[in-house]
């Protein structure tokens, strides 16, 4: 955390056109190699924060600093046979696949946009598809996939560029627990190997503690970070981690923080 953060939000607020204030006074930073989870009640502004970090939406107050804004990505068309790295990878809450083309082409898309040829991308795309368990569905069209498979395709697309910062909006919510656990482990393994920064939005307290180096708990609308829990578990996490005392303690802490935040909300909601 000595290194300058990849992204830093200071006192960020967001009010939408019709007057809904989604965020107010959000402070948040993600350093290189950090795995930050965001926990918060439904509608508290997690997706809004993610979209702002990704540069897809502008805050109405406060500032956002992004490390990669200073050093721009290589121009499209540059020789890309060497594994190429885009600063950002993103899994939105919805799968957002191109309906008019195959799963393979959907995962290939970010590379294609950087001018990587199909042949050059093949191994990378196939690897990403295998990672999420979609081998055999390369030629299927999005409408022929189940809900969970669509999300997995979307995860594969985010991973295929080997990003420095990975933004994930509930990527595993539509998956059964076994697949989810497997993907958790796969993701962690990849993270240990590549040490990207990650912001992970989830509703599973267990998942957030298991994966993260830090868990941020947000309050309901207007959202801001109300609690920061540093996860001081060993880097390598296994099934045993889940039964460890520390893990369960951290989970309980996160759960309680969330509960507190929501309790506030429902009293606020009922009084409103």
């Amino acid at each position: 955390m000595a290194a300058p953060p990849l992204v830093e939000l200071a006192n960020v607020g967001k009010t939408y056109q019709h007057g809904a204030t989604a965020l107010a006074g959000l402070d948040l930073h993600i350093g290189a190699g950090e795995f930050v989870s965001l926990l918060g009640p439904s509608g508290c502004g997690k997706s809004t924060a993610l979209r702002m970090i990704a540069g897809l939406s502008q805050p109405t107050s406060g500032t956002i600093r992004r490390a990669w804004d200073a050093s721009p990505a290589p121009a499209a068309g540059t020789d890309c046979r060497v594994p190429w790295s885009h600063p950002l990878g993103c899994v939105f809450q919805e799968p957002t696949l191109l309906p008019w083309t195959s799963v393979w082409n959907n995962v290939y898309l970010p590379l294609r946009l950087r001018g990587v040829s199909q042949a050059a991308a093949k191994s990378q795309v196939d690897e990403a598809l295998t990672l999420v368990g979609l081998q055999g569905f390369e030629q299927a069209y999005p409408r022929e996939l189940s809900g969970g498979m669509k999300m997995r395709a979307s995860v594969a697309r985010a991973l295929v560029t080997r990003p420095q910062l990975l933004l994930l909006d509930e990527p595993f919510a539509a998956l059964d627990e076994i697949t989810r656990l497997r993907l958790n482990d796969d993701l962690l393994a990849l993270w240990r190997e590549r040490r990207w920064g990650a912001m992970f939005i989830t509703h599973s307290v267990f998942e957030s503690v298991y994966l993260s180096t830090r868990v941020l708990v947000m309050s309901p609308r207007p959202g801001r970070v109300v609690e920061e829990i540093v996860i001081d578990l060993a880097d390598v996490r296994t099934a045993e981690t889940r039964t460890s005392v520390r893990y369960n303690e951290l989970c309980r802490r996160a759960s309680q923080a969330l509960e507190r935040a929501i309790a506030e909300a429902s009293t606020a909601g009922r009084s409103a």
Partner: protein
Amino acid sequence: MNERSLWIRLGAPMLVGAALLAAWEAWVRCAELPKYILPTPSEVVATIFAQWPALAPAWLVTLKTMLVALAAAVVFGVALAALFASSRLVETSLFPYAVMLQVTPLVAVAPFIVIWIGWERVWLTQLVCAWIVAFFPILSNTTMGLRSADPGLRDLFTLYDASRWQRLRLLLAPSALPYFLAGLKVSANLALVGAVVAEFVTGTQVDNPGLASTIFTSQLNSDTPLMFAALALISLTGIITFFAMEWLSHLLLARWHESAVGER
């Protein structure tokens, strides 16, 4: 679309068509209408065969004008729509001129087009006229279509720093496709009408008269069967084009768009 539904989709209109033609034939025969008022379908068909040596080249001339005008309308309409998609300001600034071009009646501006292009270049003049008639629907529909891309996918392309061209080609163009195709059907029809009307307002190419010349000649000679023969060819062209467009739609949209897929 499976084999069976394909047959139904071709067979049904043919059956309806046959029934209508039979009714027409019967009515004209019973009412004993003279053929300069309304010929029977069989007379029209007989005329098409009898006059084929004159009709065929005229048809080809009109067909050529239509197809080239349609191609130009597609190229220009799509290019302009793409330009409009790049900026809302450009769009609102230029769209009114496209409207002007379309609403100005050809009969009024034809002499100016003739002057501007040169009256010797009759075919080029006709082409320009037919193009003016045909291009607007493509422009209007494609513009609407380019705007209708899913916002989530737009975000995706922004995220990955897609260039304007990539965004256009990989995102906006496929999203606009169903709109474009609906516009194309209209434009194809208009290109055909435009090709005929252009010949009327710019004068026939003396060496290569098209169907307009046939129509006018038959009007002058009260040769109603010949006129219907020419009109039948025009209608046939329109219908064939229509089914070609339907087939193109099916080909391009079948695997993904709501308008074309069957059961989910």
